[in-house]
């Protein structure tokens, strides 16, 4: 291979001859870039999978819901988007009575009229018998929920009457993707076509119905693209009274899972990259240390510092690109490996290899490797050609000002590194704020570690000098090795400390995050709900619930009390909710003073988090309420305030005890206001039941319930809850998996960082052996040195990781932080073990070398 430029030629020749030594550097970059591209590629696919689930839950990418049919202006706005590639379908939901024959009384049903050729855009309506919705549902047929068949004693093929028209029952709706996002879920569900709705004559002027416009956006790769936010903003103007929801917020659990996993995964990839780069920097540093003679010779022969720096920069670049390429391959493998390993748990569609991630990974890897090797590269300037004559002897020490002046380029380099890393971090995390925190954390960590290294060196020197008793030889030599001039203990300590900090940060963050994520969908979360239970039926339903034993979690029977909020500390909600000038009142006003079905709770459920104030005691006799964070914000409610309510003509006051956050979704009662028993005592209540059953048991439960309590409606949310639960479980699994991968990669790189220092011990070992030291003694000396470095790095890294993860959790992941003593202690032990083992492994060859081989080379 020939190169036109001498620097390139030199760089290539050197790299060619040092290929085995560079293997590690290439490995470092490859590990970092591999983790980055693999995790990013995988996380993109994972997000796509989550979003698919989110879209399934609303059967669309974006929905608009309002209580009046779209006006011509609104139709025109919707048409604007269909012209740009979006697809649209309309759903109308209403309540009506349905009869079978004169023998049975008609039943209140919840009617859903769809266009089966378009609906649902995502997911599938499962019918029994298993025909496709589009073929089974015609203008004269109807799909119904199984409880309707029970109530009216019908079967597939029976004829029923809805409004003015007769319909044939074509099947039972087993799964309806958007069941939980629709409205008017009262009574059994029936599904008809829009033509069927027209035929029924139910929709006349003024009919109460909810209209949903479902949009599907052009898919990635389609010629037209629509920005969902832009579309939403535009639609909001045309539909000011409507509720507009897009797939990013269908379900709070999925939204949070998405947000958190995005942040966490980009965090992990960034950390992987930095730990990889750290390994590279250490290796390049060691390489340049070995090349000091070559650099001195080059300078003797007329090379300027800039020329030499260019040679080694190009070399780093060569190695960086080689490592980057290897990393992209590793990344592609990782991206393929993840779904295979996780296939048992969930289904990924094939993850396409994304060249832009590969390029980004290469660019980030090479850039970070170059940034991190800046200090050793700049140190080339300080290599004096006279080194050939005189080794390891300092000049007369210059004055502080002169020393600082000399360090100016190093400070400038540090600034460039931090700014560059900040840029890469902001880019990867797509957040400038996160980039800034990341770099700030790194800078503080570097400063602290450098200070600790300085203190350690001086402390050890003092300890050895002032020690009143004679220390064993191995201990004395091991300690002296750390502080002797020319030793690289500070740089090893800083690299190891930073590596430990990042690796443990991943562990701590994932641990806290998992706790939150799992808490959001507790295993016992109900999936079947019974509504409309009257006080008269309460005891019987309780008995019915208690008579069964096939629950996955204890059943709950909670009261529902209709209440209306009158005032907050004397101010009416309307007063507080005065819309900003120019904005129509509409929704905001409705939310303030509407009738709510509220419940009381004694103990705080684990998916409810208190953000302010305190939850009540079971035996509290004062009337208390806890308000959800969002509502408290809107109505400006704080703990200690008094809320006045009205229920069935009776006014009562309640004190705000707490502000809470609901982590999961529990249909049934209003979750914006949760009362204690004392607050709602004596008020007329209805009840709702919530149980968790295996999906296969739900139909039987529904049948039994209907037989005993015909007026009680059972809502089967098992399938929907399954999706939610799966998303949460999958997120947790991915977080665990990616963390384990990153931690493993981090440990390997850290071990290599320690191993990279072996070269400087070669000569010392040779001299000690010549003087009669046996291998066991050499091993003891190295062990003392590495154990101290490892323990200090573990301790400092642990402390820094605790601080860093607390910042990340509270500021970026919206999660709580808790100090973890055990992981910190384990980290110290593991880092010590890792440093000592890596030191031993790296020293095996040195220990086996004949002293003369080494000394002759000097």
């Amino acid at each position: 291979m020939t190169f036109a430029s001498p620097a390139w030629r030199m760089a290539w020749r050197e790299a060619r001859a040092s290929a085995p030594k560079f293997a590690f550097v290439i490995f470092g970059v490859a590990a970092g870039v591999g983790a980055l591209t693999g995790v990013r590629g995988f996380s993109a696919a994972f997000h796509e999978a989550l979003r698919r689930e989110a879209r399934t839950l609303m059967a669309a990418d974006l929905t608009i819901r309002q209580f009046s049919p779209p006006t011509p202006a609104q139709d025109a706005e919707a048409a604007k988007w269909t012209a740009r590639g979006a697809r649209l379908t309309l759903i109308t939901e209403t309540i009506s009575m349905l009869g079978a024959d004169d023998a049975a009384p008609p039943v209140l049903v919840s009617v859903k009229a769809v266009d089966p050729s378009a609906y649902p855009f995502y997911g599938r309506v499962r019918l029994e018998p298993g025909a496709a919705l589009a073929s089974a549902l015609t203008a004269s047929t109807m799909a119904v929920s199984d409880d309707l068949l029970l109530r009216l004693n019908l079967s597939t093929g029976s004829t029923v009457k809805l409004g003015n028209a007769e319909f044939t029952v074509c099947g039972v709706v087993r799964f309806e993707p958007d069941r939980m996002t629709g409205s008017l879920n009262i009574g059994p569900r029936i599904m008809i076509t829009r033509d069927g709705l027209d035929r029924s004559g139910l929709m006349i002027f003024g009919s109460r119905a909810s209209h949903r416009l479902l949009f599907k956006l052009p898919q990635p790769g389609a010629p037209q693209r629509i920005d969902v936010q832009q579309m939403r903003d535009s639609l909001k103007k045309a539909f000011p009274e409507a509720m507009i929801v897009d797939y990013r917020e269908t379900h709070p659990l999925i939204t949070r899972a998405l947000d958190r996993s995005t942040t966490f995964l980009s965090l992990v990839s960034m950390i992987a990259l930095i730990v990889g780069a750290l390994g590279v920097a250490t290796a390049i540093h060691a390489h340049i240390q070995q090349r000091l003679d070559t650099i001195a010779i080059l300078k003797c022969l007329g090379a300027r510092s800039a020329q030499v720096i260019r040679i080694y920069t190009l070399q780093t670049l060569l190695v960086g690109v080689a490592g980057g390429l290897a990393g992209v391959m590793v990344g592609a493998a990782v991206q393929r490996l993840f779904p295979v390993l996780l296939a048992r748990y969930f289904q990924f569609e094939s993850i396409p290899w994304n060249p832009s991630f590969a390029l980004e990974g290469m660019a980030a890897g090479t850039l970070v490797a170059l940034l991190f090797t800046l200090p050793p590269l700049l140190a080339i300037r300080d290599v004096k050609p006279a080194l050939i004559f005189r080794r390891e002897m300092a000049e007369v020490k210059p004055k502080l000002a002169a020393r600082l002046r000399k360090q100016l380029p190093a400070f400038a380099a540090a600034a460039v590194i931090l700014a560059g890393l900040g840029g890469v971090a902001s880019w990867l995390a797509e957040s400038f704020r996160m980039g800034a925190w990341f770099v700030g954390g790194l800078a503080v960590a570097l400063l602290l570690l450098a200070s600790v290294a300085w203190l350690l060196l001086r402390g050890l020197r003092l300890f050895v000098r002032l020690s009143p008793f004679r220390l064993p030889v191995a201990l004395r030599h091991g300690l002296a090795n750390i502080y002797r001039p020319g030793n690289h203990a500070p740089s090893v300590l800083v690299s190891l400390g930073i590596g430990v900090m990042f690796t443990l940060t991943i562990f701590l963050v994932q641990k806290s995050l998992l706790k939150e994520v799992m808490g959001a969908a507790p295993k016992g979360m109900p999936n079947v709900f019974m509504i409309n239970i009257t006080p008269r039926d309460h005891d019987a339903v309780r008995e019915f619930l208690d008579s069964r034993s096939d629950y996955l979690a204890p059943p709950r029977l909670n009261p529902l009390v209709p209440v209306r909020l009158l005032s907050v500390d004397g101010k009416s909600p309307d007063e507080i909710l005065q819309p900003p000038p120019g904005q129509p009142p509409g929704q905001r006003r409705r939310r303030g003073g509407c009738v709510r079905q509220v419940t009381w709770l004694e103990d705080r459920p684990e998916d409810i988090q208190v953000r302010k104030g305190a939850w009540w005691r079971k035996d509290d006799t004062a009337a208390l309420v806890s308000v959800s964070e969002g509502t408290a914000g809107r109505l400006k409610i704080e703990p200690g305030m008094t809320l006045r309510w009205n229920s069935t003509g009776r006014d009562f006051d309640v004190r705000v005890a707490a502000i809470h956050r609901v982590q999961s979704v529990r249909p049934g009662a209003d979750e914006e206001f949760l009362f204690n028993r004392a607050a709602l005592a004596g008020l007329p209540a209805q009840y709702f039941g919530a149980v968790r059953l295996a999906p296969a048991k739900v139909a039987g439960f529904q049948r039994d319930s209907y037989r005993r309590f015909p007026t009680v409606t059972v809502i089967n949310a098992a399938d929907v809850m399954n999706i939610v639960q799966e998303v949460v479980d999958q997120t947790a699994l991915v977080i665990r998996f990616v963390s384990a991968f990153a931690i493993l990669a981090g440990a390997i790189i850290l071990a290599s960082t320690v191993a990279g220092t072996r070269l400087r011990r070669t000569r010392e070992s040779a001299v000690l052996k010549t003087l009669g030291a046996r291998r066991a003694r050499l091993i003891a000396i190295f062990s003392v040195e590495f154990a101290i470095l490892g323990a200090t790095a573990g301790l400092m890294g642990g402390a820094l990781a605790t601080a860093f993860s607390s910042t990340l959790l509270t500021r970026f992941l919206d999660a709580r932080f808790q100090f973890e003593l055990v992981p910190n202690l384990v980290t110290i032990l593991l880092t010590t073990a890792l440093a000592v083992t890596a030191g031993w492994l790296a020293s095996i060859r040195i220990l086996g070398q004949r002293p003369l081989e080494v000394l002759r080379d000097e």
Partner: protein
Amino acid sequence: MPSQPVLSLQSVTKSIDTGTHRVDILRGIDLEIHPGEFVAVMGASGSGKSTLLGLLAGLDSPTTGSIQLDGDEISRLGEDALSELRGRKIGFVFQSYQLIPTLTAEENVLLPAELAGETGEQAATRARMLLTTVGLQDRLDHYPVQLSGGEQQRVALARAFMRKPPLLLADESTGNLDSINGRQILDLLVALNSQEGATLVLVTHDRDLAALATRIITLRDGLVVSDERKTPE
């Protein structure tokens, strides 16, 4: 001597810090070396010979005093200016050869020319010619580890003459070799020196080798204790 000196030193001192105390290696050297001279610098170990050679080459800066090369003051030049000056005016032969282990014999010889931006065929031809002169025409592609000590030193000799420097500095250049190889190297050095017309400064312990020089300077404890010029026979 009527000609302008190639090297001129006035009151040159050099001190270093060992970490615990300060060591004065050179304690005031005044010296002039003229074009075409073959100077041997002698002295016991620790007398300051190598340090002096390093200062003459601009590899290091004196603590005090002045050094002029070809009339230009070099003692206060920056690192890069010194590098450039060395590349242009000085050839080196070291005791431990100081070849770059990752380059072949030919690449090592070519290196000074490449660093100066001379990368054409002319440079390659000269490198091969010099290697042929030192008897290594069939070792061009060998790496230093594949060569014997004597062969490595010949490569170093060829490299020192690559850019036709007016001044050649040799530091114990035969010190690592047996007497036969050592003598061969010195003969080659002297022959090449007279062929290329350079000034030669040789640091050595060996009185026999020093006897070949036209001038012998002896150092002791950082001071010049004798400066003998041989009268032409």
